[in-house]
């Protein structure tokens, strides 16, 4: 009887230890989580058709565009709607950006702190558009905890409130060339897409809040197809960014990421 009790106690200890160790092994670090986020959000090549809906109080302005991306270094965007913005193009190569304005038929280099200015009147700045390097290349990541986050999700065209389990990860810049010194991410445990992001200045001031409303699966990758950005430096405004068509790992026409293409 004594031995039987001892054996059961021993097996129980092993089981508890195994469960604890297994849990430890499954627990992800901040770096692990952001690695998964980077894996979802970065790609070799991509083509997007998208629209930006800019809300100012009760008014809304819609802008449509086509975009090509290659790795984290190259990007090209052309606005196709409305008529007043049609033909405006942007080229991004590394940390540099150029804009073509059809009204003046001129390529303009967007340099220095001009990158902080609003892109096409939206809550996005040129810096936001330039940002494409993997988060882990620019930030140190620390897991702050786990939270259940109530988010507005668009499913089947309808907006529904949903509670999602998230990792809360804090990012602090480790390189100088960052738009936001500090970021706080609420990363969806299921898809590893940030459902909410707070973007801070070095002073600690909260500058922008981004929320993801729709996530779609493309092959083995999750990607946000509708997100909302609020620039807190502006009153009563937000910008929805909706991807209407996305293709990943496609062949991009030669000469896309060139100044020649800006003036075509």
């Amino acid at each position, binding site marked *: 009887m004594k031995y039987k009790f001892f054996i059961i106690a021993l097996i129980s200890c092993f089981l508890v230890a195994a469960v604890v160790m297994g849990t430890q092994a499954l627990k992800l670090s901040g770096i692990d989580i952001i690695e998964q986020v980077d894996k979802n959000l970065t790609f070799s090549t991509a083509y997007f058709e998208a629209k930006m809906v800019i809300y100012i109080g009760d008014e809304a302005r819609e802008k449509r565009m086509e975009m090509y991306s290659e790795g984290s270094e190259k990007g090209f965007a052309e606005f196709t709607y*409305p008529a*007043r913005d049609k033909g405006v193009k942007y080229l991004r190569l590394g940390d540099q950006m150029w804009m073509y304005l059809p009204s003046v038929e001129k390529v303009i280099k967007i340099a220095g702190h001009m990158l902080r200015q*609003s892109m096409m009147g939206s809550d996005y700045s040129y810096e936001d558009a330039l940002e494409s390097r993997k988060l882990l290349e620019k930030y140190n990541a620390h897991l702050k905890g786990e939270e259940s986050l109530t988010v507005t999700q668009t499913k089947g065209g309808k907006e529904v409130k949903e509670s999602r389990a998230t990792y809360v990860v804090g990012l602090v810049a480790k390189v100088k060339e960052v738009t936001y010194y500090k970021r706080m991410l609420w990363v969806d445990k299921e898809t590893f897409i940030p459902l909410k992001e707070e973007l801070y200045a070095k002073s600690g001031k909260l500058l922008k809040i981004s929320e993801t409303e729709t996530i779609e699966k493309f092959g083995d990758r999750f990607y946000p197809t509708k997100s909302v950005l609020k620039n807190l430096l502006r009153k009563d405004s937000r910008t929805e960014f909706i991807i209407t068509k996305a293709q990943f790992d496609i062949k991009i026409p030669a000469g896309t990421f*060139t100044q020649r293409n800006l003036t075509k």
Partner: protein
Amino acid sequence: MIKKFLILFFLFCAVIPFPASAELELGGYYKNDIYLLFTRKGKGIAADVNKLKLQIDYQLLENAEIYFSPYYVFLAKTEEIPLLDVTDLDKVTFDRAYVKVAFPFADVTAGRQRVAWGTGYVFNPTDIFNPFALTFAVADEDRPGIDAVRANFPLGPLSRFEAILLTDNEFSSLNKSKKGFKGKTNIGMYDLSLSYVALGDEGFQFGFDTAGELLGLGVRAEAAIINENADEDYSSKAILGWNYTFENGIGIDMEYFYNGEGQRDKSKYDWSGLFAGKIYQLGTDYLFFGLNKLLDEITTVSLSFLWNMNDSGFIVYPAFSRNIFENVDLNLEALIAGGDSGSEYKPSDAEDPSGLLGSNTLYIKFKCSF
């Protein structure tokens, strides 16, 4: 030249069967600009300028397009205004009409087109083909085109070589036409260009421009050395400018302009050259200062100040711009001129008997794009 081009185009249309895939894009805008002029002599004049501009882009082949931009201007006014630059009233004018063919090695554009050289915001010393003044106060889209053949040879993503020949003379006397070359590249965080233009009569212009980033500032520089003809001395022009945007979104822009063709002593100003359109500035040293702020996603306010440092004349240009509907913009602007009598922006009656130069003007502008 434009007539010849149109005749050639219509012959081309008649002879060449267009492929079924040819794409036609039609766009343009209607503008209604109301001007309230308060002349130097105290007279008030109201004018209403209506401009309808079409932009027709016909993609003939995958690598060839025809672009037309005819416009019509109708002006209603309370009294006669000797508008110095307006020669296109009450008639259809083509400010763009060209054929563009993209070869694997170059883009070739032939016809009436815009050639915009330089990195300056207010002044462009190297912009010898489409010179323009007061770009911060005059809609840049109104810049007229020039008749030319131009070839752009790409030499990489950010480098190119450009060759241009103006076709404003008969073929037999093309040696009198302006012709030029420009090489452009990118080194580090800087765009760099070098250009050379033969002006005819053995005159020439060497040009240089750059734009990039220095200590967080957007910086730009542009310079030109000009020799109008073999009998004249060299002169030079240059700008140096920078811009910065604060975290609160306020943008600041400054540009210094050195005009070697101008005079530091206002008694030596070449007023007749200015009125004849041969020169665009009278003085030697100018400073531009501009502030802008996006109030919300559709509203911008700006304040521009241009100072002739030689005679203390100045222009102040406040502007308010709002996108009132998806494709409709409203601009409220004012051009206020100041300075001592006889200065560039406040001439005396002896220099400008019309009393128009140095007027203060209010603008109410609507623009509807389609």
